């Protein structure tokens, strides 16, 4: 029976059209700032030559390369008598000259060298930066920013202590001492996990609600419920619909994620960076760097990210399925789902900021997808718990599964008029 239910989804062209539309949209997001990221290969060259780990050998090699190239830089302007140590000094003093006299090839070489130097300088200063990092101070700033007080403040500060410990462990592991695309310049983490991650989450949500509501309400909307639910399979048909929903939704969401990631990784080369810790300093885009609760490589983080995305979509599927059982009308289901999502996001904004209730209210499946770029990290005071994502998914999975069973129980005993 599951096969027949799946055919109903496949036969609805809206899903194929939507899926293609979403992938195109994500493609546009990916290509949107491609020009600003045209110097990304500089890092690939560094990594190929020196590896991803920042150590004395790598730094010495880089310095040697800079010195060698600076000989060429110092010869670029014959009128200049000053000998420069670093390309950014030269660029600063000869801005007008560069664009008037240098060829594109020379300009590229100069700017790439400048970027190379930036990687070198940053790598040199990593340890100093981390020695001054203070998770508690970061938490205090955030507490002040959002106006938390009382028990909520206390809880966040306790969590900041945990983050402090993790920070020490991170430094000890040397997770921060790895080359990665320069966060402040390229914001690759935000592009992949925030812009695209959030887009996929919302697109997936639309697909999931549509697919689930279509399957669950199909017999009612085609007026075939009387024949279908009086057959031998009867109201157990809903179990087939649930199974088909899981399969169709997992397939649709995975297709969306896979297509988006394939485009992303085809455009931006991560081949040498897959095993770089996600907490590398180079990945940070704000003064307080990303700190994952565990030592995760970029690849592991992507896998966890995909898993979390998929599970959150399954939560939406469970909610939609239950709503469909009660409402039996796709439009009402869409409206109710949107209302539920809206209320879930609105409640935390009106809850008192001095009790832990404000933090509990953030444990909801809709808030979860608002900040996917800080999943499994201690960078958001409202989600500053090592297992925030797992707990949110588990708690709501239990709630929605229970709601599903209650709905099924009700459906088996309700009159079908």
């Amino acid at each position, binding site marked *: 029976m599951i096969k027949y239910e799946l055919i109903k989804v496949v036969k609805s062209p809206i899903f194929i059209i939507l899926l293609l539309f979403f992938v195109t949209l994500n493609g546009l997001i990916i290509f949107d700032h491609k020009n600003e990221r045209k110097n990304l290969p500089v890092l690939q060259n560094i990594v190929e030559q020196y590896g991803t780990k920042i150590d004395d050998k790598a730094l010495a090699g880089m310095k040697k390369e800079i010195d060698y190239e600076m000989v060429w830089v110092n010869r670029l302007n014959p009128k200049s008598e000053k000998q420069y140590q670093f390309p950014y000094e030269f660029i600063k003093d000869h801005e007008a000259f560069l664009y008037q006299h240098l060829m594109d090839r020379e300009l590229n070489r100069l700017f790439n060298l400048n970027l190379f130097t930036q990687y070198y300088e940053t790598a040199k200063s990593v340890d100093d930066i981390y020695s001054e990092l203070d998770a508690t101070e970061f938490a205090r700033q955030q507490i002040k920013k959002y106006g938390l007080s009382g028990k909520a403040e206390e809880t966040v500060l306790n969590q900041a202590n945990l983050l402090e410990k993790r920070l020490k462990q991170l430094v000890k592991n040397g997770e921060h001492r790895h080359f990665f695309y320069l966060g402040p310049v390229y914001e690759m983490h935000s592009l992949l996990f925030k812009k695209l991650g959030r887009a996929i989450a919302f697109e997936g949500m639309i697909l999931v609600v549509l697919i689930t509501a279509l399957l669950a309400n199909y017999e009612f909307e085609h007026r075939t419920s009387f*024949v279908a639910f009086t057959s031998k399979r009867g109201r157990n048909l809903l179990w087939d619909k649930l199974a088909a929903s899981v399969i169709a939704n997992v397939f649709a969401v995975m297709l969306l994620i896979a297509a988006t990631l394939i485009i992303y990784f085809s455009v931006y080369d991560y081949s040498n960076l897959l095993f770089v810790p996600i907490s590398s300093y180079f990945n940070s885009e704000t003064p307080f760097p990303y700190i994952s609760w565990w030592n995760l490589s970029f690849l592991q983080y992507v896998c966890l990210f995909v898993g979390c995305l998929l599970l959150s979509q399954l939560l939406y599927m469970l909610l939609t399925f239950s709503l469909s059982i009660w409402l039996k009308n796709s439009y009402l289901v869409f409206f109710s789902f949107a209302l539920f999502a809206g209320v879930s996001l609105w409640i935390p904004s009106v809850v008192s900021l001095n009790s832990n209730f404000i933090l509990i209210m953030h444990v909801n499946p809709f808030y979860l997808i608002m900040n996917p770029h800080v999943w499994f990290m201690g960078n958001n005071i409202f989600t500053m718990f090592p297992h925030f994502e797992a707990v949110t998914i588990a708690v709501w999975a239990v709630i929605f599964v229970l709601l599903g069973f209650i709905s099924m129980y009700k459906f088996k005993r309700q*009159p079908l008029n």
Partner: protein
Amino acid sequence: MLIVDHVSKYYGNFIALENVHLQFDNGIYGLLAPNGAGKTTLMKMLVTLIFPTKGEIRYNGENIIHLGSKYRELLGYLPQQFGYYKHYSPAKYLLYLSALKGISKHEAKEKIPKLLKLVGLEDVMHKKMRKFSGGMIQRVGIAQALLNDPKILILDEPTAGLDPTERARFRKLLTQLANDRIIILSTHIVSDVESIANEIIMIKDKTILYKKPIRELCQLLSGRIYETAADFQDAEIFRKRFATISEKQENGQMIFRFVSDEQPNENWKSVEPTLEDVFLHVYGEGALA
């Protein structure tokens, strides 16, 4: 044997059916009542779409709700509003419904062409149902009800949309099927059941008024049905005085068919009561005394 054991159905304060008690053996039963009398409610309870508020329905001694799929696999049901997938062909739709009914694909593929031939749809079995007429859809509905060779066949207004030839074919089909199964046929069209039903069930005032063979029902009006001619100017007076069942114009006069307990006069011609007389009398002027 299917027993509706003192069943009542309430929707809040609204009484849809009250204390209905019926027993069905193999044969055709015509459920005859005007629209809104509770036929569909009774049928929906028989197919487990809705549940009795009081009483229970038993098949071979067991409550049909407890029997669950064991009961439903014996069931063939054509609802009043038969829904279908417009983008499916009859063959494909029946294949899907076969799966729902627990029929193997192999068996279904053998059965479906035969059933579609039986209802005269063999030429269009692979055409999408989008452009089918109401009558054609109704025939698909009849075919699907027969898919699992049901022991209990419940048909709610099955002849709606069928032309006279199709109706006749359908009646013949039911007669052939009635030997070894219970067929319950709801209708408000007397001719649908007049020639084929073993028993007629009439619902009035939310409960069962009669469950009798047609002959016995007609005997209730035996000697009380007359026909007479009257001038047009006297027609209104006649209507007020007698419970007219039907009237027609013939040779410039009105011919009345009516029920009367009065002593007949020489102008009245006593006629044999028909099921239609009973139906019109029961629902037109109140139940028979």
